[in-house]
């Protein structure tokens, strides 16, 4: 199977039976050879891939892992690699379904569901990159990007304030049991706080049964809820200026809830070894035995709530809507001419955490007018008020950005809330895939500078006009001309949208284009 990130409205369309649009993918084969050395694990592999390919420039690619090294990786390890693969900006990452997959499904009581799926002999890739697992060393993603890779060796001995283990990337039984083996019979350093968040109740039960949970508690770890938790800044914000080692997949500035914190992304092995010392430690110095794949998982599906939708003769549940659940705002059609203003100018690699912060603001996601107050809060907290003032003056808001605008999480609110604030276009050097799709879904034209040097010639506050934009898009224009009325210059931007994207931009978004009229 492949799993592809998308904004909520694309999910809604898929649930309504509609098709999902993606850039035609190119496939890069990542050939794995050899076997991981002791003390290294899957997290170090994906950090190695990020070191090579970074967090931008991979739009439209699928990374497929193949080669003799694949069979040395258990399913949770493959999951770590494909989970954090999202930070490359790829459409998805995939491993073959082989004997290891079969054993995992059998251990889950689902062997009958296994289907073999491997590349044909002689199948080709658009590009191939080889990773020798036996040459992997422990790595870290340094502040503030998952692509900013350094070796653990180079950071050895640095004092650490906080260590958090868990998240969707590294919270499997294998991961947490490995941590318990490092901590067994010992205690974490005095002046470091250590938190553990297991992936699921099943994992907690397994760790309770084999004594790992007791080891972790006695070693001084705080046991956290099985949730996204610290990754999204929902809790456990570190102290001012802290160095925090975490096993999750995103270390964007401020995401932890503490703007001055320096978050490094590491493997569970590096985290555990460093927790004991209170400093960065190379986990290869005293490695523990590999955790074998369980022969059987104790299945606990009690927390599944199944369908209760109304159907003939059966009453469904009544939909419950608390006061924070607001109306979904509708977009307005694109005007014939765009009379706009550069409401903000931002640099490179602006993430959806910059645009639409999580943490303490996360609870407002069901309430667009409220959540919109926090658009760009980490960058420019006056953005919301300025946009509404511009909107009241009859001006369309335009966001001007550098390279790789919209990295990171798929949260569509990073497009939906700007739409609500009257943003009608983004003009950037380049835009990441999911965010590009979300902008189109909410009627915001994702335009790119034809000449990146024009970025330096625009400033926040410049009045930007695109006369005849609607007609140009209707004709499928590859480029349109923007008039900078303040600087008295013009520059070209790239459009080149598909017929489907044009329809959505002109209508004011997907809901405006398709919702039944009430």
């Amino acid at each position, binding site marked *: *199977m*492949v799993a592809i990130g998308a904004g*909520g*409205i694309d*999910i*809604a*369309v898929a*649930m*309504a*039976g509609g098709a*999902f*649009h*993606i*850039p*035609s*993918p190119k*496939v890069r084969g990542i050939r794995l050879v050899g076997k991981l050395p002791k003390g290294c694990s899957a997290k170090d592999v994906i950090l190695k891939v990020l070191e090579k390919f970074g967090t931008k420039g991979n739009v439209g690619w*699928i990374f*497929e892992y*193949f080669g003799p090294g694949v069979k040395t990786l258990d399913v949770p390890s493959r999951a770590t690699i494909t989970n954090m693969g999202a930070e490359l900006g790829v459409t998805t990452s*995939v*491993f*073959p379904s082989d004997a290891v997959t079969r054993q995992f499904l059998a251990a889950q009581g689902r062997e009958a569901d296994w289907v073999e*799926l*491997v*590349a*044909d*002999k*002689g*199948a080709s*890739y658009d590009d191939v990159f080889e990773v020798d697992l036996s040459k992997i060393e422990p790595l870290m993603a340094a502040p503030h990007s998952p692509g900013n890779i350094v070796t653990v060796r180079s950071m050895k001995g640095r004092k650490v304030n906080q260590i958090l283990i868990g998240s969707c990337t590294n919270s499997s039984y294998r991961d947490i049991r490995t941590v318990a083996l490092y901590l067994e019979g010992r205690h974490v350093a005095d002046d470091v706080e250590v938190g553990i968040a297991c992936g699921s109740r099943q994992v907690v039960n397994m760790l309770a049964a084999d004594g790992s949970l007791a080891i972790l508690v006695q070693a001084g770890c705080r046991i956290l809820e099985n*949730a*996204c*938790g610290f990754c*999204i800044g*929902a*809790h456990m914000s570190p102290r001012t200026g802290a160095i925090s080692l975490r096993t999750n997949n995103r270390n964007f500035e401020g995401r932890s809830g503490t703007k001055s914190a320096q978050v490094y992304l590491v493997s569970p092995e590096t985290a555990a070894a460093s927790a004991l010392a209170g400093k960065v430690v190379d986990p290869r110095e005293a490695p523990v035995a590999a955790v074998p794949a369980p022969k059987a998982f104790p299945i606990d599906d009690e927390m599944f709530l199944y*369908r209760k*939708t*109304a159907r003939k003769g059966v009453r469904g*549940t009544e*939909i*419950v*809507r*608390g*006061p*924070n*659940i607001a109306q*979904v705002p509708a977009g307005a059609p694109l005007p014939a001419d765009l009379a706009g203003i550069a409401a903000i100018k931002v640099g490179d690699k602006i993430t959806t955490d910059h645009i639409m912060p*999580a943490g303490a603001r*996360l*609870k407002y*996601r*069901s*309430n667009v007018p409220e959540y919109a107050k926090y658009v760009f809060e980490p960058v420019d907290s006056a953005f919301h008020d300025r946009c509404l003032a511009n909107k009241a003056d009859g001006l369309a808001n335009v966001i001007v950005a550098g390279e790789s605008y919209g990295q990171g999480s798929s949260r569509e609110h990073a497009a*939906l809330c700007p739409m609500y604030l009257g943003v009608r276009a983004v003009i950037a050097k380049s835009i990441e895939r999911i965010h590009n799709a979300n902008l189109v879904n909410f009627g915001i034209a994702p335009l790119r500078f034809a000449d990146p040097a024009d970025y330096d010639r625009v400033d926040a506050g410049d009045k930007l006009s695109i006369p005849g934009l609607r007609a140009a898009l209707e004709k499928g224009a590859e480029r349109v001309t923007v008039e900078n009325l303040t600087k008295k210059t013009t520059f070209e931007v790239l459009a080149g949208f598909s017929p489907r994207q044009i329809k959505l931009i002109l209508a004011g978004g997907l*809901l405006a284009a*398709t*919702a*039944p009229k009430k």
Partner: protein
Amino acid sequence: MMNVAQKILASHVVEGDPRRDSEIAIRIDQTLTQDATGTMAYLQFESMGVPRVKNELAVSYVDHNTVQIGFENADDHDFLASIR
């Protein structure tokens, strides 16, 4: 001869040719949301006027807003449980 990604996509493409077009459309079997971004997905689904999900499996996973400071998170969870 196809690699794994090509095999999976080939059995799901409904529009476009990956070798020729810049964009393709694929059929989606399963959808997964989490509680922070999922409420908006379901509110938008509701506004489309489709009475029941049409894909093979739609899962709503609640594992983000678990700290629950203030009423908003628990209300979202009630909403998500009630729309199933």
